[in-house]
């Protein structure tokens, strides 16, 4: 058995065209993604932007609200928001014109904001002011209607902030571009189909002379088929691990911290990719080049539907025809990676694994029934 294993391993890894599609192409694609998204991605996987700078103009107002807003801004100032308190209104407006600051907060009874244009920084400043106004209105209402519950209201507000912060950062990344890399790994898993198609060709007497020669030997067909499948899954699993290491260590994209789960998804993806190829390779009598050509579509179409080329595709499908996302192995794989990297949703993760397992079993049975034949109607 080891003997068969060794030669099948050598034969497969030396097959340049097949290994290109199964390993090199996803790596190249990953590199292109990385450079396309530019500096939006850094080693922690968190999207970064410049600190938003704003000036604060305190009008001569000693109202309760103005004081509260003053305190709120003091607390909000930090890594994300850099405030200048010493500028006059004229200086602040000049800095706003020059683009040195993004906006000007006015501390008064009705706090206000002046911004120069539309953009991410401006949205953040607006969001901060809106958040303050909503919370202040809430507290005011409670103070007037249920003053005795004011301490609990403050506490709840505090809890809400904590919960919000935890849920947002719980998955370790906020970067929407990471979904492209999840879709890429899912596509790479499916590209094991190239290995499967190639191997099915060498196994069936009606497809190749090599298949015929192997079929007339005293080595049991079942042994040959199982050896082939084992070798291919192992090779492709290594391919996917290499891609994972490349994405996380070389490109610096975080794929999550749950390494065992990540490896498990990689393995399931390798199995489904190889079985898909074996099944496809064994159910028709097309030429090898034709099958390899169709395998490109067989892997890229599910990849496309999983958001490989257009990041929002999977979400659109989820909105309009979610069953496709349940049946598309690339989408299920991508979702499993997303569960690990973004949501930390183990229930959804388990569901993905179960779907992948069921699909793998079905494809394995199809592939096995296809390649185990020993006698043919025509050769």
């Amino acid at each position, binding site marked *: 058995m080891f*003997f*068969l294993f060794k*030669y099948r391993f*050598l*034969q*497969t890894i*030396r*097959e340049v065209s097949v290994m290109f599609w199964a390993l090199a192409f996803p790596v190249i694609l990953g590199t292109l993604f990385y450079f396309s998204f530019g500096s939006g991605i850094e080693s922690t996987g968190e999207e970064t932007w410049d600190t938003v700078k704003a000036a604060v103009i305190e009008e001569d107002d000693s109202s309760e609200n103005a004081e509260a807003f003053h305190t709120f801004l003091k607390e909000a100032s930090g890594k994300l928001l850099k405030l200048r308190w010493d500028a006059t209104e004229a200086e602040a407006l000049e800095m706003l014109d020059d683009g040195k600051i993004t906006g000007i907060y006015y501390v008064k009874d009705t706090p206000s904001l002046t911004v120069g244009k539309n953009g991410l920084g401006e949205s953040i400043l607006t969001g901060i002011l809106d958040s303050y106004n909503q919370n202040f209105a809430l507290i005011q209402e409670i103070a007037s209607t249920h003053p005795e519950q004011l301490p609990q209201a403050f506490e709840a507000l505090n809890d809400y902030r904590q919960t919000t912060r935890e849920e947002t950062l719980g998955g370790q990344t906020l970067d929407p571009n990471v979904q492209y890399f999840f879709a890429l790994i899912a596509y790479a898993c499916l590209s094991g189909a190239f290995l499967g198609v190639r191997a099915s060709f*060498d196994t069936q*007497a009606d497809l*190749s*002379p*090599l298949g*015929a*020669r*192997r*079929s*007339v*030997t*005293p*080595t*049991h067909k079942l042994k040959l088929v199982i050896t082939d499948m084992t070798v291919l899954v192992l090779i492709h699993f290594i391919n996917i691990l290499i891609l994972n290491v490349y994405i996380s260590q070389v490109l610096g994209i975080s794929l999550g911290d749950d390494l065992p789960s990540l490896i498990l998804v990689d393995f399931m993806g390798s199995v489904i990719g190889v079985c898909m190829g074996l099944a496809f390779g064994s159910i028709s009598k097309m030429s090898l080049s034709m099958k390899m050509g169709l395998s490109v579509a067989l892997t890229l179409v599910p990849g496309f539907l999983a958001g490989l080329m257009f990041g929002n595709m999977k979400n659109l499908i989820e909105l309009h025809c979610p069953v496709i996302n349940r049946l598309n192995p690339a989408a299920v794989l991508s979702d499993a990676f997303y569960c690990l990297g973004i949501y930390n949703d183990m229930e959804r993760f388990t569901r993905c694994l179960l779907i992948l397992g069921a699909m793998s079993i079905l494809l394995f049975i199809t592939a096995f029934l296809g390649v185990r034949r*020993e*006698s*043919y*109607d*025509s*050769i």
Partner: protein
Amino acid sequence: MIHIENLVKRYGSFVALDHLNLDIQEGEVFGLLGPNGSGKTTAINCLLALLKYDKGNITVFGRQMHPDSYDLKKDIGVVMQNVAVFEQMTVRENIDYFCGLYVRDRNERQKLVDEAIRFTGLEDYLKMRPKKLSGGLLRRLNIACGIVHKPRLIIMDEPTVAVDPQSRNRILEGILELNRQGSTIIYTSHYMEEVEQICSRIAIIDHGQVLATGTTEELKSMIKTGETITIETIHLGENELDGIRKLPHVFDLTYEDQVLKLRLSSAKHNLIRILNYLQEHDIAFGRVFSELPTLNDVFLEITGKELRD
């Protein structure tokens, strides 16, 4: 050793094998001779249980041959018509791999691989991949992979197609050597010269039927043609042609493109009689050839068409 009885194989309405019967004895080099599409490879594939057949019975080594007859398969070596090796493996790796499908013991395998390499003369190419080999060397590798485990029965399906004359001779000599070492050989070809050169018995096959079986001499003696005489002559009228046609032992005559071709039954002095007739009638002639019957003549007489067609 091999008994094929009433074998029928159909592809839809096309009958590829039409009640084919064959008996092959141990120790023979048995030739299956027929034009392309005559059913040779189909018969071999049925024999190897690769192809399902509609009717008939096949026994190998006295036992029924089935797809899972693994104990029979270990004594059979096959050299496919198309080269069947792994492009990604070296010459030695390929031979070792195919030997390993038959022989588990590592030491024995190594010995057999070395012998097969020597036998096919591939010593200088062991680390090369098939893509780098010439057509002849590739065929030799194909043979080495098929015979490496020293089988009792070797089936060779047109092993010399697209091979240069030097490699072809080496392959044919090798086949005779394998036979001397004790292997029974089944050799299919549409090259009658090869079959005539190495086969101890021959079956002529066409349209999926065995038309005749026997040694070369037996087959030649089955036909009327004893001699074929070809003469280059500029002009022959109908009278002269009628005269030649009436000469003793002439039973077929064609005259095309100033070439007169006569087929005569076996008799002494056929050529002298023809040349005397030409001289007596002042017919000028150029080159003259006289040939003894070939397997092509056998095929021609049985089927009415040339083997090379």
